[in-house]
């Protein structure tokens, strides 16, 4: 029996396998039911016991070795095929992707949300009130009687005698206090109206009013709460300044300035060379106002504050023309 020849045929056969098809054919020739190994094993029958045993062992070991080598080749061809498959599924990953369409919250709403978040964390509830308001709530109850000089500060839209578009969110101070006993801790976001339309004024704009009334509330508490607010809103290092001001419905009244966000205090056009930007009006609720809603100013005290949302949004986002908020250019809206 010529094992040498079997060996040679295996070697030359493997060497000639170039493709998976070659491999399949060769596998059949070698290992098939009528294949070379079968033929050799069959040939063992004609040998004596000793030879059969020796040749048999040799053929079988060659067979399993060959099977192993063919399996290796098979894996190799499969791997090649997978690679080719991947090549075929090539895409140009530099083509643009499909951005999901999402909308944007109006920058004013975003600013409202941030203000409300801060005051909510300080225990303030949110209330809303009518935008068409009586002169009583808009003025008289806030210590602004008819012909009071402070009415000159505001240009009011009238609906009919006694009915106006609210010029501030402050009327809700009265409505809230009338509807409940102290303690009061509330903020009022909303739209307000004044007859003015130019680069720095729109006839409708937005305010957030705040009111805290309780036993023993001090002016220093107003400073404390509003300092916390400003540091939350504009960053913990923002300089804050409280200076005396006048509002008919608070006393003492304070205007609150922050260090200019543009020039950091050196003076620029935005801050009119002062280094400061007016951001909030505030003050201790006037005893006259407390008495008007049936609170006893000797028993309870409190403070109120109000801020223009557009102004804060302009500073936050660096917008220089208030009218931008109302054109609703998609190129504007998509920036927020």
């Amino acid at each position, binding site marked *: 029996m010529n094992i040498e020849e079997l060996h040679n045929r295996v070697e030359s056969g493997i060497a000639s396998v170039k493709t998976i098809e070659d491999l399949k054919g060769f596998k059949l020739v070698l290992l098939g039911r009528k294949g070379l190994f079968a033929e050799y094993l069959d040939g063992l029958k004609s040998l004596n016991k000793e030879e059969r045993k020796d040749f048999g062992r040799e053929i079988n070991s060659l067979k399993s070795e060959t099977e192993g080598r063919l399996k290796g080749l098979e894996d190799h061809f499969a791997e090649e095929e997978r690679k080719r498959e991947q090549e075929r599924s090539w895409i140009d990953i530099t*083509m643009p992707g*499909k951005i999901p*369409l*999402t*909308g944007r919250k*109006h920058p004013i*709403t975003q600013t409202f949300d941030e203000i*409300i978040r801060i005051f*909510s964390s300080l*225990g303030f*509830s*949110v*209330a*809303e009130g*009518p*935008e*068409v308001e009586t002169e009583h709530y808009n003025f008289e109850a806030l210590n602004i009687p008819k*012909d009071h*000089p*402070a009415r*000159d500060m505001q240009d009011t*839209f*009238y*609906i*009919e005698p006694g*009915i106006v578009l609210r010029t501030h969110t402050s009327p809700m101070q009265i409505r809230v206090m009338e509807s409940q006993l102290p*303690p009061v*801790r509330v903020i009022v976001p909303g*739209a307000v109206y004044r007859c003015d339309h130019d680069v720095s004024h*729109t*006839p*409708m704009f937005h305010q957030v009013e705040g009111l805290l009334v309780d036993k*023993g*509330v*001090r*002016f*220093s*508490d107003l*400073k*404390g709460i509003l*300092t*916390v607010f400003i540091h939350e809103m504009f960053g913990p290092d923002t300089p804050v*300044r*409280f*200076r*005396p*001001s*006048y509002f*008919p419905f608070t*006393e*003492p009244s*304070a205007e609150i300035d922050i260090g200019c966000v543009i020039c950091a205090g050196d003076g620029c056009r935005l801050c*009119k060379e002062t280094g400061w930007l007016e951001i909030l009006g505030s003050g201790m609720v006037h005893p006259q106002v407390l008495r008007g809603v049936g609170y006893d*100013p000797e028993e309870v*005290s409190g403070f109120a504050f109000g801020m223009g949302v557009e102004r804060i949004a302009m500073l936050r986002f660096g917008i220089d023309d208030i009218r931008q908020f*109302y054109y*609703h*250019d*998609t*190129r504007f809206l998509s920036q927020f």
Partner: protein
Amino acid sequence: MRIPFEWLKEFVVIEMEPHELAARLTMRGFEVESVEEVESAFDGVVVGTIAEIEKHPKADKLSLCKVDIGREILSIVCGAKNISPGDRVPVATVGARLSENFLIEKRPVRGIDSFGMLCSEKELGLSNDHSGIFILPEDFVIGSMLAHAPGIRDVVFDISVPPNRGDCLSVYGVAREVASILKQKAKLPIFRLDDGQENIKDYLSLEIHHIGACPRYVLRMIKDISIVSSPFWMRNRIMKCGMRPINSVVDVTNYVMLELGQPLHSFDYERLRGKRIEVRLTEGNDRFRTLDGQDRDLDKGDILICDGEGPVAIAGIMGGENSEISVHTKAVALESAFFNPLFIRKTARRLGIRSEASLRFEKGIDVDNVDFAAERAIFLMNAISGGTVIKGKQEIHERAEKKTISVSFARINEVIGTPIEQQEVVEALRSIDIFVIAALEGNISLSIPLFRHDIVEYMDVIEEVTRIYGFDHIPPTMPVVTVQPQKKGLKDIFTRKTKDYLISAGFSELINFSFSSLKDNENFLIPPSDERTSCVTIMNPLSKDYGIMRTMVAPGILKNVAYNINRGSKNMRFFEMGKVFISNGHGLPEEYPTLCFIMTGKEREYFWREKATDYDFFDIKGVLEGLMGQFGLDFTLMRSEEPFLNRSRAGDILVGGVKAGWIGELKDEVLEAYEIEQKCYCTELRFDIIMAKGNLKVQFQQIPRYPQAVRDFSFYADDAVPVSTLIEEIKMVSPLIQHVGVFDMFKKETRSIALRVIFQSFEDTLKDETVNGLQEIIITKLANIKGVTLRT
């Protein structure tokens, strides 16, 4: 209020830099809005003296001057006639810039080179006097910069005086506040009036009919004056305060008003009839011509100043033409008075006149200062216009008691949150002329000066202490408050959830003005019977476009759509949540929170992988379905009668049987009114109804443990049979039917509709026989509907 710094320094010693003082005033509540440098206007202008004047050889009206400016002699051509050798004059040298467009250059004037220009006051911006060259006082140093000369170099504070501080609408008033800052006392001007021999009683009598309207009135007189132009220093100060110089009499009254805060009025004595002045209230309707030539309608309660025959001035507002000072005036009767602010305010408001005088009277002036101001003015008139002062005054004065206010030191510190020492409180108040008149066990009684009309109760005093102590010295504290749960804002939660949903669905938020116009109602074809024509109308609108409060949100959004289309973007998804206003006839209107959203164009202009299709009704309906799902709401669509909708592609939205809004394609003619040429799908919802019917509660549903069964059905259905009927009919067949979906629809002659039904049991796995049985029932049931046939 414009306050010249050099004038301020007449009343109080200031060593501080103007900017520092400005900062201190701001922190006192007197916001200095600007510190304006007056000198910067005339860089390059020096003091010169006229050495020689010759005639210009080629022009009769011009002269050729040799002007000595110290370092050299300049040759300057000049057209003015009021100069003579030896005069000191302001010389704008070559290179000086008198205004933005006025640069001084060497240039030939009728053939002779001129090396600069001699200036008038007007050219220097010092006054409006352009009658000739500004002849400078003798003490101005030749060759020095004009800007450095006394009274010229100055800064002007523009102070925003708080509306309740009428006492600070004068240089002296501000000086009082400055003195308090600098721990001084402001000094009133000192002068001596040279009385003549004649007594005013022989010239004028005075009567007040209504002392409540005018508790103090003083008349003083001067005669034989000549009306001239006021001296430079006076005109300069008046100009710096923002007023215009007129003549030596009017200027003095304005000057004293600016100086002391007391408005004054001068009458031409010779034009006063009957040698008398009466102060009375108008009784009936009257008409009166004021000195600006306008006829004014008087009304009951106006204070009138009358002579022997009739009105000569509307008190505190404006004088009459009939007694006005003119260039021929020889004798002046000067009025200084305190008029009740309430009366003046009412009249000024009604007549729409805001004069410098009425502004001050309205806020209340210093009643104690009335006669001093009159004396001061007569003194100045005498000094400038010459003449003879008539001795004495006519005066009626009902004296008012000073207010007394009590407060305790403890209360002061309790309100402010400070430990301010008693002595510090007393000193602070003393610095603004509030004095302790009694003190007992930590309580003090204080006397309030009459010029402080704003201080009426102890909180006003505490405000003053706070202000003077300094806001920046008060430590910030956190309030000790009652702990209470925050009230849950339902509207806030609904609103937030809605906005978040719409934003995730690709809608951007808009906030439009709540104003609208009747034109919008017209554009939307709203018939007169519609509730939305009950508009809240603005009496004083900014323009017709903003004439009413909106009754719908959609028109505003269409304007935004048009705006963006004009700027090249065609694809939009917008929403707005705001109020609409429906009038109740009178009183407060209804304010309904309303949600509107719109889709127009397509999702995106292009995407390389697929073709973009235009939005249609089902895009916006899907958004609505998703929104309603957020609040667990079912809704049905009914045929809509809204006049602005394309009725075959629109519907009214019913929630629990109530109309909550509308949805659909807007009519082309509506869109055309807004110049929009593409389809717009829009819906508007009454958000109060959504909030009332909606549910924020989330209830977990068991997830079924058994597999579901799915069956598909195909039918032909006439247009008369809506898909919703098919779905409802199927759902009624069995509680095991969990969902019915439409997975295909196409139309050839009739509509072919493919439905997918999902069967689900929570108790066991559904057997095939069960599902098949139900399938049969469904087929039979639907096939029995008129216009429906099974498709095989």
